[in-house]
């Protein structure tokens, strides 16, 4: 039975309010970052940290959510889990791209090169590529593509602890995980505010992306109903 969409406008309004609030945050963040104290050795380029770390956090969060949804799909056949996995994987690709651009900009100023095969950089690149592969497997993997992609998401999630701990386990050029806890007091507010705003934006984008999937499912349902109705009338 085809249900009407009485809540569609309400959810659209909720989405717009959320988007506006987070976009407002996107203006407040640079103001806070601009007023944060300068780091002694790196100077102004250290301020990339306030955007780079939240993007990296969202890359990892997206991967875990994608793996969670994939588990639900693989073992319970949950379509909702599959939609959640697909949506969060796409956000992982988006924020992973931001990590892959902002990181080298910082590296160029700090290390003199845009890229080096440091273990943190390499494992992050692999994680990002796995999420891209997840999307490609879904799109071009044929009949079993969704299950193949779901299995790949579990491998991607296994890479997350490696990405996180790599800087402590194998000392490379990248700053360690202790950087956040050792931030100067004046740097904490801009950092955690930025982290909160980026996380809120992630939530809003996930809701938007999930809506696309729900609408897509409704469209398929309607197409079947139309085919059925047209078949009966002939």
């Amino acid at each position, binding site marked *: 039975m*085809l249900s009407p969409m009485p809540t569609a406008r309400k959810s659209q309004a909720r989405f717009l309010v959320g*988007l506006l609030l987070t976009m407002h945050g*996107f203006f407040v963040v*640079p103001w806070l970052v601009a007023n944060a104290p300068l780091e002694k050795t790196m100077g*102004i*380029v250290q*301020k*990339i940290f306030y*955007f*780079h770390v939240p*993007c990296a956090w969202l890359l990892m969060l997206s991967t875990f959510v994608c793996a969670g949804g994939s588990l639900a799909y693989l073992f319970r056949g949950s379509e909702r889990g599959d939609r959640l996995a697909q949506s969060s994987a796409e956000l992982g690709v*988006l924020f992973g*791209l*931001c990590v892959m*651009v*902002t990181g080298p*900009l*910082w590296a*160029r*100023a700090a290390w003199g090169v845009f890229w080096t095969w440091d273990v943190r950089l390499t494992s992050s690149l692999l994680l990002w590529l796995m999420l891209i592969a997840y999307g490609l497997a879904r799109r071009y993997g044929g009949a079993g593509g969704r299950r193949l992609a779901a299995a790949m998401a579990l491998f991607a999630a296994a890479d997350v602890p490696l990405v996180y701990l790599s800087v402590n386990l194998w000392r490379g050029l990248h700053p360690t995980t202790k950087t956040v806890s050792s931030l100067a007091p004046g740097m904490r507010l801009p950092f955690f505010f930025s982290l909160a705003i980026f996380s809120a*934006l992630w939530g809003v*984008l996930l809701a*938007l*992306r999930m*809506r*696309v999937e729900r*609408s*897509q499912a*409704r*469209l398929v349902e*309607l*197409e079947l*109903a*139309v085919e059925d*109705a047209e078949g009966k009338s002939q």
Partner: protein
Amino acid sequence: MTYVALAYGFIWGAVFTYVALVGRRVAKIDAEIEDLRRRVKPGA
């Protein structure tokens, strides 16, 4: 300063582009749904 501006500008651009692309997809699917809904309504 250039690198900081580039980094933040890129994130803004990427998010804005993503929202625009997904928004366009939502609008397209909604239009198709509305079209099909009209077709399945009795007497339409």
